[in-house]
């Protein structure tokens, strides 16, 4: 049973004070349904981590009704910052299990609370009993990996900083991006320290946003769309939530496992990927993500970016959206943004940096690499 993406939608990412969580979800979700001529979905899967900030659980039923699909099966899927990817994995399985049309909406409203509250809640993605209790922010946890990685592989501050420069160069052209400005390397490496060695420009912003993908079974897909994009594989994998019991602090095992499984299911190799959206919550996450996808050896990705690799024109082009760094990171929506962006690249209608692509990949990472979904798409 082949499954296709036949519609996508997204809101601009940003600090969207005037929009509630349901407004955001409706804007993205209805755009995706509009793309299939308003054909109603048979089920709705919502990817979200922190609707607790809006005091609103039960998002599945809330959104089904609010969008105009009262009654259809609907629920929320949560896997920390990997909630969007996990929601796509669930939506994909629902179609494989027999449904014809499933709408997946990723949505997050993070700017509803003061920053120390939001950052504490983001740290709910870590181990509450053995990590959070000591006080690390989510940036702090990633900083622990970044220091270790830079030290172990002799990666310089400049090499790590090149990640942000590339992301902003791409995101500058993305009308949906949260932070649309170019930055130079000096700005990155001299920006304020958030959690040493992570500086402001190593970190994604705190964003609101929603994205949607409309999935359909093969026959339905051809009926609903002239440009279906085929889902070749969706592979979810997990790791310890705590970083402590992992064998290695210089790689994300779940991302490696998820990518391998996805490549196997799709019958392709890393070199076959034309365009990829990887999960760069921090520079270090992006670098480890690129290595997990098999686009660089462990310890090499930052150096390659610094040398100019992965920019538009290269194969693969990485994060033409600007990535989490520039497009932004509305946590539970991010994994859905990534898939929607890759779909637009394959259809040829992404409104920013465009990549001529046949095969695309999206990698969504929850926690510090504890829940990862890799999706492979083909035109």
């Amino acid at each position: 049973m082949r499954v296709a993406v036949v519609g996508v939608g997204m809101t601009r990412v940003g600090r969207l004070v005037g929009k509630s969580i349901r407004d955001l979800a409706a804007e993205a979700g209805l755009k995706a349904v509009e793309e299939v001529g308003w054909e109603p979905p048979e089920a709705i899967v919502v990817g979200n981590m922190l609707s607790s900030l809006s005091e609103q659980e039960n998002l599945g039923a809330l959104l089904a009704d609010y969008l105009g699909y009262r009654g259809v099966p609907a629920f929320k899927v949560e896997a920390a910052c990997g909630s969007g990817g996990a929601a796509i994995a669930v939506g994909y399985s629902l179609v494989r299990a027999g449904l014809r049309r499933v709408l997946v909406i990723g949505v997050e409203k993070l700017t509803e609370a003061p920053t120390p509250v939001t950052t504490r809640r983001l740290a709910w993605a870590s181990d509450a009993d053995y990590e959070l209790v000591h006080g690390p922010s989510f940036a702090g946890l990633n900083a622990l990996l970044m220091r270790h990685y830079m030290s172990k592989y002799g990666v310089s501050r400049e090499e790590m900083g090149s990640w942000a420069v590339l992301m902003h160069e791409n995101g500058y052209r993305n009308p949906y991006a949260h932070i649309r400005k170019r930055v130079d390397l000096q700005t990155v490496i001299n920006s304020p320290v958030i959690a040493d060695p992570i500086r402001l420009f190593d970190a994604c912003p705190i964003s609101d946003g929603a994205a949607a993908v409309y999935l359909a079974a093969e026959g339905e897909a051809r009926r609903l769309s002239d440009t279906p994009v085929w889902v070749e594989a969706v592979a979810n994998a997990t790791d310890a939530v705590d970083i402590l019991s992992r064998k290695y602090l210089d790689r994300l095992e779940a991302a490696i496992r998820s990518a391998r499984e996805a490549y196997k299911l799709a019958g392709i190799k890393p070199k076959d990927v034309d365009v990829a959206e990887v999960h760069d919550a921090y520079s270090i996450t992006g670098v480890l993500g690129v290595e997990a996808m098999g686009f660089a050896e462990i310890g090499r990705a930052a150096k390659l970016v610094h040398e100019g690799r992965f920019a538009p024109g290269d194969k693969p082009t990485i994060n033409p959206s600007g990535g989490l760094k520039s497009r932004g990171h509305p946590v539970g929506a991010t994994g859905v943004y990534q898939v929607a962006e890759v779909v637009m690249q394959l259809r040829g209608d992404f409104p920013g940096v465009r990549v001529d692509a046949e095969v695309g990949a999206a990698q969504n990472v929850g926690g510090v690499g504890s829940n990862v979904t890799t999706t492979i798409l083909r035109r």
Partner: protein
Amino acid sequence: MTSVQRLWRRSREYLSLKAFRCRRCGEVIYPPKRACPYCGSRDLVEITLPRKGRIITYTVINVPIEGFSKPTIIAVAELGGAKVMAQVVEGAEHLVEDAEVEVVLGKVGRTVEGLEYYMPAFRVVSGKDLKEGDTD
């Protein structure tokens, strides 16, 4: 925010640095799990980690989360084959990778009720500009 209930529930294991050793593969398992993540065995024996070890990595957090103050200094140290996370509450000026640390009790944050609470924390005893034995 951390509840007093949560701290109370794990107080004994926090204070004693409880971990497991896998009887099949010999690996140290920390934080505690119900099975060995390395070989899958459920044949585990409880152990107590040593209170001295070496820093693997650390961070100085300038944007603390709710309940903690600036800066929050967090380190991961290797203690008897386990990687343990804790705040650095003494000797932070000597903090460097591979610095020697010992576990002390430190005031680290506030609970939801607003009470300050104590947790195992690190004191740097040998590191940057410090030779082993310089302190105490």
